[in-house]
């Protein structure tokens, strides 16, 4: 899974030469063998490295605060989303509240945080019923926006997010 994400990320970043990854441990943590230095271990570490390699530092956030927020979400992706320590409903609830008045997770532009959170949350959103997508309307809106960003979706199937509300507040 993580390897597919990294491959998609490389394509999105426009990196010409795809890297060769290996994995370690039962959790299949991705490893990138770096020629000169120590190997890079972990999805987030490697992803950040790729962003720097592609010379797209803005994807890591704008300014000190912006960069901190991006890192926070990258950490959230690995510690909360991937590890299944939180139950799905509370993740969606928190994210829905957070996204109430935001277009992107960090700042006003697409960052690596949006991309990796999109990859990570895709399977959850895919399984939501129309009614649930309406319940977490801000998450759905953000998700639809990110999946339509040119070049981001790649290996993942599109998820239908309806424009119009089908369920009013007093639904059957």
């Amino acid at each position, binding site marked *: 899974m993580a390897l597919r994400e990294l491959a998609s990320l490389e394509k999105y970043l426009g990196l010409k030469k795809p890297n060769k990854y290996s994995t370690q441990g039962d959790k299949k943590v991705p490893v990138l063998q770096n020629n000169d230095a120590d190997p890079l271990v972990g999805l987030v570490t490697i992803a950040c490295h790729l962003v720097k390699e592609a010379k797209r530092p803005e994807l890591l956030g704008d300014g000190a605060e912006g960069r901190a927020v991006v890192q926070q979400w990258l950490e959230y992706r690995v510690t909360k989303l991937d590890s299944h320590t939180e139950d799905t409903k509370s993740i969606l609830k928190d994210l829905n509240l957070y996204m109430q008045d935001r277009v992107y997770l960090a700042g006003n532009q697409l960052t690596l945080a949006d991309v990796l959170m999109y990859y990570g949350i895709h399977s959850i959103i895919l399984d939501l*019923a*129309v009614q649930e997508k309406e319940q977490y309307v801000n998450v759905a809106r953000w998700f639809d926006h990110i999946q339509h960003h040119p070049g981001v979706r790649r290996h993942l199937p599109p*998820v*239908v997010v*309806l424009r*119009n*509300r*089908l*369920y*009013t507040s*007093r639904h*059957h």
Partner: protein
Amino acid sequence: MCFVVFFLKDFAKDRYGVSAMVQSQQKLDRALVRVEDLTPHKVDQLIWLRARVHTSRAKGKQCFLVLRQQQFNVQALVAVGDRASKQMVKFAANITKESIVDVEAMVRKVEQKIESCSQQDVELHIERIFVISQAEPRLPLQLEDAVRPDGDGEEEGRATVNQDTRLDNRVIDLRTTTSQAIFRLQSGVCQLFRDTLTKKGFVEIQTPKIISAASEGGANVFTVSYFKSSAYLAQSPQLYKQMCICADFDKVFCVGPVFRAEDSNTHRHLTEFVGLDIEMAFNYHYHEVIDSITDTMVQDRYQTEIQTVSKQFPSEPFKFLEPTLRLEYTEALAMLREAGVEMGDEDDLSTPNEKLLGRLVKEKYDTDFYVLDKYPLAVRPFYTMPDPNNPKYSNSYDMFMRGEEILSGAQRVHDPQLLTERALHHQIDLEKIKSYIDSFRYGAPPHGGGGIGLERVCMLYLGLHNVRQTSMFPRDPKRLTP
């Protein structure tokens, strides 16, 4: 020692009390006024009425009562004065709730509208009050609780009554204004069905309910002992409706019980319900049948009843289009696929997909009632006429209210040869349906029809959530009484 006890002389003692049981001892020439007729035009008249004591509450030298008759209620007052004594006021205050009383009273105008009663402009000043039938003091449920909206109960710490308690004490539960409204509406739905069809030349028929073979399939049928053998309770009048068409009755309908031994404990299944069934011979196209059916379903009457029910069970008002919206199955598939649902061309609609489709249709067309036409042949019964142009589809339709199915119908196969083929295709034992196939051997007109569940239609029309609310004495796998 002697005790001297004083009795305050009760000057009003002839004007109140518990009456002797009415055993038709006498024919009193007394007109009783209906509570619903207590309007300002009756002010200053002395009238008699018979009603239930909904509440009675003493306040010093007065006793306030609310007298109720079905959906209507009125405030009444017994006050110590020249007509009523202290003992009479005390008597009135102690009359148990739900007791039936005969009351003679002056109708008086009120300054401020009495919001809590149906008769808001007048109140009764009681001169005589007699108990005709006393209710036991401990009621199994309180009508105020039974009529309270569910949400309110939790918020204000007041009780509501759960469904099982209501159903166990149905006689009292049916007295609530909501129940009265629901079943009057139900009566109206039946009436509209009959009136509409009779005007179109339909004949009402009665079909047997004790039959020799399961009409819809052997799984969900009740068996009864029939002298030395067994018989079944009819799952639908299907067979007999069609036989009537072959017997030249042309257009028929029947209203009667339907028995389904389905062990489904859901909000919309009953083991016994009332079927409104229709079957008609048509000239050239089965859409003539669909139009006849939809005409029986759409009406604007009974607004008062609908309002009353929505006080306890708020819901979105029911919307429909004229003419009724008719979608083809392929269109529905497209709408569902656009919403992210994956379905094969010949798949049946699952209940969640039906509900989602209902929402999509509501959003797109703003209607709660529509017809879905041309179902895939594979998912319909063997007697369904295949589509003439596309063998994968059929001349069959379902109708939906608020996203839930209320009717399944079709053009039937009226040719015995084709019928035999279809039966064989469905691996049905031809012996078991021999008399059915025989009905079509001596000239049978093209015909079609469908069946509706009365309780389900009322439930959906009113936006209620459980079919037991629209069945007076519901039957389900767990309930056989009252």
